[in-house]
Every structure is written in C-alpha cells, then in structure tokens.
C-alpha cells in the first residue's frame, strides 16, 4: 500500500544542513497497523509527513496505492491527499465549526448530494461514538472527544490510509487506550491501512502489527511487534522495550547501588526474558530444587502482545558458582533469555 524508498530529507537551518531523514526505505502492507517509534527529534514526524507530502522528500520516492506521489502536480497531490486521512496530536479541529460541521468541512468537495453528505457525516460520528455530541463546538469537547471527531473527519473521504501523528500523546492513559481501541476497530471495519508515529512502546504494543524504530533520522530496526519485543537487536530498541516493561528502573537502581539490588557473596542478579508462553511455570522451582540455588523475585512484568505473552523477570540467585552456571545453562535450554545484570 505504501512504499517508501531511499527517502532523504534535509532541512537547511541557518545555512546548516540538518539531515532529518537518511535513506529510509519501508514497505507498509494494505490493512496493517504500522507503528513508527522514536524519541522526539528522531525524524518520525517528518517521515509521516512525507507520506502525504506535507514534507517533500529531498530525494527518494513515495508510492501510495501504486501512485508515485513525488511525481504528481500540485493538483494531483491534493487529489492523492484526499485518499489519505490524517489525525494529529492536538486534533486541529476548526474551532468555528461544530463536530458535524468539521466532518462536513472535509466533505465539501465530495460529489455527494447535500443530504448524502449530512448522512455520511452523521454515520461517521456515530461510528466514533459521538452521535450525541454532533452539534457541540470543539471548545466544549474533551480531548478524547475531539480526537474522535478528528478521526471521523479523517475518514470522511473513504481513505485507504490513515496517518496518525502522535494521536494519543496529548490524552490521559484511559482515553488514550479508548482511542487506540477505536483505531483498531476502524482498521478492521473499514479496511484502512494505519500508519502511526509515537514515542510510546505501549501504543505499539497495544495495536500495531509491525513497527519501525528510528533514531537520528535513520531506520534502526523493523519487524513484527512480537519479534521486536522478544528479541530487540539495536540499542535504541532495547531501551524502548526495557522502558516499556519497567525494567529500566532496575538498571537505574543498579547504577545507583540501591539496597534493593545489593548483593551478598555468591549472589547474582539475573534478567530472564521469555516469549510466547513456551516456558513452564515451574522453572524457578526447578532451579531451586535441582541446582540448590536460592531464588527471589525482585521484579516481574508480563506484556500481552497479540495474544502472546512476553515476560520479564528480575531474580536474585544465591548459590555455588558451579550451580549458578548450571542453572543459567538450564534456563537457556528452556528457551529463556538470561542476562546477568550484576554479580559479586
């Protein structure tokens, strides 16, 4: 559906070249929810704006639905943009128009009759769960409601692609979850391909099929969300994953030498990661019994991604060096990734 090939974007700011995007190539399939994650300044905003040419790539090509966008005239670009909806972090609703007015505004150039437009706008607002608020002005709507109107507006021209620019970053966690749920519903019901950018791994975890990680304008890693979570390769991805599971805290504590992670002799701190439910529950019991390793759990997190669980455990183990080594080898045999976080 979307094919980004060798895209570069260079801004000239105060006579200095800023390479916002460097040789990015990505392919986004029809119907999938594709996430792009990066810290602020990583270039993800620029990248998503390249897809509808709000930013024109310096070099490279953008194909959407078989059409090369960079080759189109200004009018052609406008036509192509109508086939792509976009929602924003700060909603960008027209303050002088009601919820209904905002959706109708996006429909003004459609070929439908006045009645058909009105019906479509009402149907869309119902789809996003705002049937009771259609005559409200944006200033009277909550953040979540505003984003719902924005979604209805973005869907009004039956787009094949929906671009989401930090769509949930300005919302509280509960509202954010409800908007993500709505996006998922929309993608299934209307067969819309969704591209979203975010700085939160939780958003990716919640609804994305695949994810691309970018840093400093470069694509660092790309793949299925489950794979990226269970086997992150690049440093930046590992950072995102550990932040998301909360394990980043433990690393901080180790750095600060906090008492909770202080070790006695013959003790070590291990991080266990396991994916896909293939690990037997009795693992901890087994290493205690078989290898005589005293174990206590310091931290635990289980993330559910697309019906799979990815678990992270931090345990402290105490025992003879030889037994500890055997226990680790045993756990690795069982398909658990074991990392020694700290040892005495």
């Amino acid at each position, binding site marked *: 559906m979307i094919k980004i090939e060798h895209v570069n974007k260079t801004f000239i700011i105060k006579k200095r070249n800023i390479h916002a995007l460097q040789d990015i190539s990505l392919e986004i399939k029809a119907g999938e929810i594709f996430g792009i994650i990066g810290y602020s300044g990583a270039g993800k905003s620029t990248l998503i704006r390249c897809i*509808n040419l*709000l930013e024109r790539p310096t070099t490279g090509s953008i194909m959407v639905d078989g059409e090369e966008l960079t080759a189109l005239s200004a009018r052609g*670009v*406008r*036509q*192509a*943009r*109508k086939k*792509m*909806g*976009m929602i*924003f972090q*700060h*909603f*960008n*609703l*027209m*303050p*002088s128009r009601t919820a209904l007015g905002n959706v109708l*505004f*996006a429909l*003004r*150039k459609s070929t439908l009759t006045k009645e058909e437009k009105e019906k479509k706008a009402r149907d869309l607002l119902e789809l996003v769960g705002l049937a009771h608020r259609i005559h409200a*002005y*944006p*200033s009277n709507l909550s953040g979540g409601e505003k984003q719902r109107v924005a979604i209805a*507006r973005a869907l009004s*021209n039956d787009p094949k692609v929906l*671009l989401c620019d930090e769509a949930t970053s300005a919302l509280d966690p509960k509202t954010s979850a409800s908007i993500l749920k709505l996006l998922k519903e929309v993608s299934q019901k209307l067969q819309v391909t969704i591209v979203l950018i975010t700085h939160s791994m939780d958003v990716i975890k919640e609804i994305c099929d695949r994810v691309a990680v970018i840093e400093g304008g470069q694509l660092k890693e790309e793949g299925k969300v489950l794979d990226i979570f269970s086997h992150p390769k690049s440093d930046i991805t590992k950072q995102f994953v550990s932040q998301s599971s909360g394990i980043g805290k433990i690393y901080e504590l180790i750095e600060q030498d906090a008492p909770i992670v202080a070790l006695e002799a013959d003790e070590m701190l291990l991080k266990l990661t396991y994916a896909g439910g293939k690990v037997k529950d009795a693992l901890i019991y087994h290493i205690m019994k078989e290898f005589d390793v005293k174990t206590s759990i310091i931290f635990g997190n289980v993330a559910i991604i697309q019906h799979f669980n990815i678990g992270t455990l931090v345990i402290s183990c105490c025992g003879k060096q030889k037994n500890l080594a055997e226990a680790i080898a045993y756990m690795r045999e069982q398909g658990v990734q074991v990392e020694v976080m700290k040892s005495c």
Partner: protein
Amino acid sequence: MLETLIPNWGRFGDRLISDTMATLQMVAIAGSIAFILGMTFGVLLVVTKKEGILEQLFIYNLLDMIINVIRSIPFLILLILLIPISRAIVGTGLGVTGAIIPLVFGTTPFFARQIESAIAELDSGLVEASLAMGMSPIEIIFSVYLRESIPSITRVTQITAINLVALTTFAGAVGAGGLGDFAIQFGLQLRLMDLLWAAIIIILIIVSVIQGIGNVIIKWSTK
C-alpha cells in the same frame, strides 16, 4: 431642547449636521475601500511569507517595504503629498472626495498589518490539517484563515475604524470639512464651547457604535 443644551444651535446647527455627515461619509467610503484592500494585502502577507502556503518572498518583501514606508509618513503630510494622486484618480484633491484617497492610504497599511497579525494568531495546525485534507490555497484562505479568525479580524477592524475616525479630523486641511474641522473652527477659533462639546459627543457616539457592532460580532463568532 437643543436650543437650551446648545445655545448656538440656531446659528450653526446646519454646519454641525453637514460636518457630521462629511465625517460619516469619509469613514464609510474610505473605511470600506481600506477594509477590502487591507484584508487583501494582509492575506497576501500571510500566504507569501516564508513557509507560507504560497511562499513568494519577492512579493512579501515588496509589500512589506511599501507598507513600512507609507506607515512612517505622518498623516497630515500624506494628505498634502497625495493631492496630485487624488486629482488623477478621483478628479479632485479637495473636499470629501479629495480626502478619500489619503484616508485609504493612511488606513490600509495599518489595517493590513493588523490583519496579518490577526491571522498569524491562528494555530498553524489548522492549516496543516486542511492541507492534509487536500484543500487548495484559495479554499484555505477563505475557509480557514478568514473564517477562523473572524473574532480577531473584527477586533482589529474596530481598532482601525476608530483610528480612521481620528484621521478624518485632519481632513479639514483639504477642505473636506468633518467634525475635526468643525471643532477647530467653532471650538478653537470662535470659542463656542457648546459646539465643541457637541462635536465631541457625536464622535463619542460614532466610536461607541463601532465598538458595539464589533462586540456583537465577536460574541456571535466566538464559539
């Protein structure tokens, strides 16, 4: 009634009425022209500036310079300077007709700047959203820039219109009459204080009406 409040009404009442009419004419005609021109130039400034939706730096810089130059000329001097241009355009440099061109020149640059800053207050996200919807620059100008800034455009129009009322008081210099001229003749030179006060009160009423209409529009358009 009028006789007791304004003892000199009998002698000069007709002058007061005709000068009030002259002021109203100048404000209405010059105001309408300046409104349209100023709005056009203000929008042009917004769309042609760097990163604007129709970026044309040459046009922007040219407009910017012309506006700055005209704005820096004191109005009384502008009034005299423009007599030949008035003659060329409207056939006379004198009277109410002759005052219109200088008043337009005196008001438009100020108004254009005000419009520019009124539109600049708009959230740039609105324009981005409209571009993402595939809207053309013309649609964006009318349906976003102008429509969404109706409250601030009204506010700057109030300010400019009140300024314009003040400028018309200079128009006596080219024989256009008006309340300013009336006040100088009867208040300053003949020391007929009742007539001076009458002129002041009429100007106050004009300004209040402008304020009132503007406030109603602002209230109605702010959602």
